[in-house]
């Protein structure tokens, strides 16, 4: 029967070509959207690698002030540490977690060169962000001996640079010495892909390391925030002080990812509804046109359910034609590795898109095929 339906649809391919193109286009759009969603879901399931609750980022700008900047930054850090509400303070560059700024550099070990996110932080960074260090330790100021700057790398960077080699104590990129390895570090939030990251011990006199990450005790409120801002302003006159909660910054980062996806989802739904309505109309029309055939098939031994199944089967065959063409296109993405997305993600996206297409065409065919089954064979044969 399946071969029969294939023949029937194949011989009518000209009349069905528009439908096939529509289903194919829907599949391609769905495939794109599904890929986007699968990539993000996969990323989301990778642990973030650090804690952000009760962590505030205090951005300091010296503005016109040019005298003793590094020294002032150090004093601010000490002042912050003195508050009883503050558990830990870390000083780092402006690329704090969930911020929009980012720094990356190429780094090399034994001819293996990778691009990694770089963070200049101090010895309190791991403590402030609850980062565990499974291998080695988080750098201390005391690690900075000789010409090498101590660095901590994340697991991803370790795998790409060292593969199975032990990275501890190794020199990378001429001036960095690895003292520890942490797991993930996804600075831009859960939807970010897990990328290589390198943390270097910032020099105390670096004036550009001007952001304080403070971890406050749970329950610390905006009154304390106001107090901190006031105190700092009094210490470093003319500077601007800006406090952001990491929880809020994380939400902003998520929205940056989610909003385009939601818009794409809405646009895609409209497209699919359109295609579905078109399909529904075409099916209704074709069944009205094929009453004679339906009567004949009943006379030759088809049951009412058999007629219903035939019409659903036909639309599945049609969808399969369209999907086969779609597969030819979709398969190019993993084959040519167009984007930096792994093949498993594409395959999952293809399966999801196919499932949705089959689901939609089945829904569209359900009612017309029921109508077809209800046609009285004697009446239908009588009409022609």
């Amino acid at each position, binding site marked *: *029967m399946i*071969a*029969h339906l294939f*023949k*029937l649809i194949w*011989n*009518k391919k000209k009349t069905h070509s528009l439908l096939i193109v529509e289903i194919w286009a829907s599949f391609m759009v769905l495939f794109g959207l599904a890929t986007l969603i699968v990539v993000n879901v996969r990323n989301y399931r990778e642990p973030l690698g650090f804690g952000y609750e009760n962590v505030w980022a205090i951005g300091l700008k010296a503005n016109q002030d040019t005298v003793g900047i590094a020294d002032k930054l150090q004093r601010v850090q000490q002042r912050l540490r003195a508050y009883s509400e503050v558990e830990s303070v870390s000083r780092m560059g402006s690329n704090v977690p969930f911020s929009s700024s980012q720094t990356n550099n190429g780094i090399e070990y034994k001819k293996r060169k990778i691009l990694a996110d770089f963070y200049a932080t101090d010895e309190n960074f791991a403590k402030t962000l609850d980062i565990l260090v499974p291998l080695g330790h988080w750098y201390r100021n005391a690690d900075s001996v000789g010409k090498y700057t101590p660095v901590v790398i994340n697991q991803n960077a370790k795998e790409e640079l060292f593969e199975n080699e032990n990275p501890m104590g190794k020199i990378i990129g001429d001036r960095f010495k690895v003292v520890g390895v942490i797991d993930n570090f996804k600075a831009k939030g859960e939807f970010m892909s897990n990328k290589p990251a390198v943390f270097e011990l910032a020099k105390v006199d670096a004036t550009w390391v001007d952001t304080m990450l403070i971890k406050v005790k749970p329950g610390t409120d905006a009154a304390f925030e106001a107090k901190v801002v006031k105190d700092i302003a009094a210490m470093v006159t003319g500077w601007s002080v800006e406090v952001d909660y990491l929880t809020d910054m994380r939400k902003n980062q998520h929205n940056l990812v989610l909003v385009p996806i939601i818009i794409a989802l809405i646009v895609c739904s409209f497209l699919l509804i359109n295609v579905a309505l078109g399909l529904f109309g075409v099916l209704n029309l074709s069944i009205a046109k094929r009453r*004679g*055939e339906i*009567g*004949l*098939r*009943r*006379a*030759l*031994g*088809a*049951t*009412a*359910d*058999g007629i219903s199944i035939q019409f659903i089967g036909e639309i599945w065959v049609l969808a399969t034609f369209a999907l086969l063409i779609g597969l030819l296109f979709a398969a190019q993405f993993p084959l040519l590795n167009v984007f930096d997305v792994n093949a498993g993600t594409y395959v999952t996206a293809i399966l999801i898109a196919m499932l949705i297409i089959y689901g939609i065409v089945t829904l569209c065919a359900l009612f017309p095929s029921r109508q077809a089954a209800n046609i*009285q*064979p*004697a009446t239908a*044969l*009588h009409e*022609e």
Partner: protein
Amino acid sequence: MIHLQNIEKVYRTSTIETLALNNINLDIKKGEFVSIMGPSGCGKSTLLNVMGLLDEPSKGTVQLDGQPVMKYTDKELAKLRNQKIGFIFQSFHLINDLTVLDNVEIPLLYRATNGKPRQEYAKEALAKVGLSNRMKHFPKQLSGGQKQRVAIARAIVGNPHIILADEPTGNLDSAMGNEIMTILQELNNEGATIVMVTHDEQMAKRTHRLIRLFDGTQVV
């Protein structure tokens, strides 16, 4: 073979009620070739549809091979139509998007016949009606007589005992009509029971028995 008792068929629409068949009692014996005649609209097609289990009578009983079929489910009726009855229609009812061979195979699709034997049976049936050289053609490429021969091949491919033909020569000129009639007679000689509706007295004369209908009532 086919036994009809007190058959009545009423078509009801919102405005009118048509009594298409009125108290029909009929007995078609095995191996008979029966023709049905009567003016247009007198209920011939309705009668054939009732015999072919395509239409349910409003009253009365239908027996096929001694079995009353009134309580049968849709599935059981479909099986009986498929295995015991072959239909031929005035307007051929071929599926234009399928080749001649594929058209003839259709009844076998509704039983579990494998692809290979299915094709063989269909080819045999086409050979019987002399269309072996038209298997890959599409219905549009055939003459009326050829189309009706394809329809006959389709009706006999499943070896039914009964052939119901509703004006099989109605759309054909007399030469082609005669050709069809000859094939039907051959099938009858080979043992098929045939009931044929016709407008043509000459055709009717070539059958064993003639039933005349008038306004839904049997007059002879």
